[in-house]
């Protein structure tokens, strides 16, 4: 791709949109070359590739906010004209307070050499072989290799460029029909990417999960795998979005400076780290930075773009989302104990590998349930004594965070499908008295 042509076109679109009467304009241009291999039953199902170029336009005219997209290299004038007309027929937004005009972000670009299709196929083969060597009968999952160019230009005078590539593997291993384990791994470096590591962990858990029996209801001390913790931190990050707070749909509303978790819980949003989810600037061009969300159990900050920050008399945290700010890459502080030590100190409880289908009865109160899947291991006197199935975690987000009694020194960088939707570097967490329910007899 011709990067100069790409960025010049984004500049042209922004200039044209301003000339047509927009007060504020931001163009986020993306050109991607991504590949994916999906596999199941230890065999490759499909190999996909996407080559796409999009120019996302955000404009405000007399506080009427419009978003639209120019695809590929089509004529942008007709699309911008329509967007301006839409603004003129629209209503002003009570929330819109402008866009960023200064940034400390720098442009960063590096070279990228795509791997061959065969090399990506080999990564899947290595993962599947490792799963079999570690006791799995079958494996399913996804390998991604993504590359993206991102250029941002705004009417406030910010223009920045970044690019990056990553590798990601999600693998779920089955020892038998109802015994599975799941793990993910990602890297920005092709040479440091080890798919076997995730496969070994998922297969090992699958083997431990053999012959599960129906779980009991009650309150159980539970050692949560990083897959589960990342789901909770993704939810916490979403609840910290100032947009959700101002909407009235966050259980963290009105709780700044108050305890929302135990002392063991410290969570930051920090996309500056060299991990998948890394970025240099947000969707307004503001430099991303480390923002403490929860520090030793106390809620410290909401996440802001320029509009939400001005509304709440704060400063942008570099988390735009042009309408709603969002967490980009969460980091939860680790502890001093190894997770195996934590497990060996458990008297009677559960180890939960993964959860899915997290849904709220009441977002404001934080009441939700989520369903453990993959290895749910019974722990007695510090030993794994068997596996269970058919249980549900029925909890409250603040309550479960307040009952975290310890976190491990080991951390994993996790993102998975719809659950841990924000990449999160998280430890294992020991949570006291997790409420476990199940279907009626």
């Amino acid at each position, binding site marked *: 791709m011709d990067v100069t042509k790409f960025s010049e076109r984004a500049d042209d679109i922004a200039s044209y949109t301003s000339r047509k009467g927009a007060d504020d304009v931001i163009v986020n241009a993306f050109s991607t070359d991504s590949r994916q291999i999906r596999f*199941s039953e230890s065999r*490759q199902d499909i190999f996909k590739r996407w080559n796409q170029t999009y120019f996302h336009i955000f404009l405000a005219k007399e506080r009427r906010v419009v978003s639209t*997209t120019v695809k590929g290299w089509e004529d942008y004038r007709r699309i911008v004209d329509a967007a301006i007309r839409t603004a003129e027929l629209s209503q002003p937004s009570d929330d819109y307070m402008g866009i960023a005009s200064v940034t400390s972000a720098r442009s960063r670009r590096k070279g990228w050499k795509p791997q061959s299709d065969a090399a990506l196929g080999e990564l899947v083969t290595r993962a599947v072989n490792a799963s079999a060597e570690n006791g799995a009968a079958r494996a399913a999952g996804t390998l991604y290799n993504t590359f993206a160019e991102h250029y941002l230009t705004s009417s406030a005078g910010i223009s920045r460029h970044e690019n990056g590539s990553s590798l990601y593997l999600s693998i779920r291993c089955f020892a038998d029909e109802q015994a599975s384990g799941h793990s993910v791994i990602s890297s920005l470096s092709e040479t440091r990417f080890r798919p076997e590591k995730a496969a070994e962990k998922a297969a090992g858990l699958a083997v431990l999960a053999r012959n599960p029996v129906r779980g009991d209801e009650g309150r159980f001390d539970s050692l949560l795998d990083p897959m589960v913790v990342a789901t909770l931190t993704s939810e916490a990050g979403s609840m910290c979005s100032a947009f959700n707070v101002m*909407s009235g749909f966050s259980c963290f509303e009105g709780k700044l400076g108050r305890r929302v978790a135990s002392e063991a819980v410290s969570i930051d949003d920090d996309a500056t780290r060299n991990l998948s989810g890394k970025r240099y600037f947000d969707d307004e061009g503001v430099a991303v930075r480390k923002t403490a969300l929860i520090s030793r159990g106390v809620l410290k900050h909401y996440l802001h773009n320029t509009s939400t920050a001005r509304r709440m008399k704060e400063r942008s945290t570099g988390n735009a989302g042009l309408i709603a700010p969002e967490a980009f890459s969460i980091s939860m502080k680790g502890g001093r104990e190894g997770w195996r030590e934590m497990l060996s100190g458990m008297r009677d409880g559960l180890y939960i590998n993964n959860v899915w289908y997290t849904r709220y009865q009441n977002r404001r109160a934080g009441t939700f*349930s989520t369903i453990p899947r993959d290895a749910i291991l019974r722990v007695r006197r510090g030993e794994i004594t068997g596996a269970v199935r058919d249980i549900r975690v029925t909890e409250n987000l603040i309550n479960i965070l307040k009952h975290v009694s310890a976190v491990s020194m080991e951390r994993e960088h996790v993102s998975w499908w719809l659950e841990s939707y924000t990449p999160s570097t998280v430890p294992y967490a020991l949570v006291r008295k997790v409420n476990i329910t199940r279907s009626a007899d």
Partner: protein
Amino acid sequence: MRKSEDDQEGYALAEKAVALCSGRGVIYANATYRRSSELGMFFKNGSLSVISPDSDAGISVRVVTDRGVGFASTNHLGAGGVRTAVSHALSMARAGSGNSADFAAGKAEVAEWTSPQKIKFGDVDTEEKVRRISELDSAMSDASRLKSFRQVGYGETVEHKFYADTDGARITALDPKVEISYFIMLQKGGDYEQAHRQLGYSGGFEAIDELKAESRAVEEVMAVETMLEKGRRFVPGTYDLVCGNEVTGIACHESCGHPMEADRIMGREAAQAGKSFVELDSGGMRIGSELVTIVDDPTIERSFGFYLYDDEGVKARRRTLYRRGVVDEFLQNRESGSKSGSISNGAGRAASYDSEPLVRMANTYLLPGGHSDQELVEGVKRGVLLKSFNEWNIDDRRFNQKYVGREAYLIENGEITVPVRSPVLEITTPGFWSAVDAVAKRIEYSGGTCGKGDPMQGMEVDMGGPMIRLRGIRMKG
């Protein structure tokens, strides 16, 4: 069907892609061109946060060889972009380690289909659309004296689709859809209750009236207020349970539609949306009572999940999933059909040009019985009416599910008496369907966006059915 110059060019590019794939060791190949025009708007607490006139277009190419399946998509619409996509798809299809699916689907169809728009989106100006959705929001705000927090979304899409494959199928479609969603939170002191609803429609702007969005939303707000003001704590125990239409619908979708997807049964979704408690050889397995017949039917005009040919060129038809309580027919696309020794029954759907077609539901619902809604209630001495739900989930084998009441009432001696807050139904799939002892006549549907695949594809579906009665159900509080 009128084709724009852009579309004619897109169709020609799809034809070119299929021609480029012919021969070369290809068992089957298809190309899909799709172009969509959209308008979205989102209101937060009465203020229009953003309005989005948008469009998208692109082509995908899927190639099947004896080594594997390759899928490439691009929005670089030109001969060069298509040649590159074909080249990538061929390369990837040949990079596999073996493939057993031939993707055959029988007769190659040549057809056109559309959903008529009584009021075309282009005939209503943007100002009017903003006004109507703003009025819906205001009506919700005015419906309760309690403080409310609201999010209201509107989306309209017209998608032009063209499908061509090496078997000779050629399907042209014009697919207009409308989606309205609202999320409300009411506050009474330190106490809160929420409601969320999604409504969907295939057709034009008449959807606003046809869906009765405003009156439904107002009723919803009033029900939430009733729960906050008058709702009693629910006492757990064993009750007869009457499920409202919305609860019947979600149960049909989650514990019948999903487990009957053949790709899921064969493990294709194992690392994402999960597997199924049903096996390919489970035909005849009893799941529910004789009163339980659940179908999935894409051919219902105006429904959110409407289509006449799927996104793999296969003619759509109604599928009976559970017939009189037993497993009957799986949902199949070309891949799952050929892998399982069956054939596609028109359930292959892709959310966009850059998505592979997966096995998907369309409109899943329980067939009606012979009772009035009132008769179901009259037959209960001590029970619960679970009219609607907030929290719900189901495990990834589709066996253990949970629905927590949003609007719920006690039933005493055949009459609906007091509102109760958040009764919990946590039950297995056979436990739920085998307890059904009466089915009402009147059907209602709710819209939904069903999630599956990787990257996740949100798919428009309806789910519904009549009210049903279940005997002797353990309810939690």
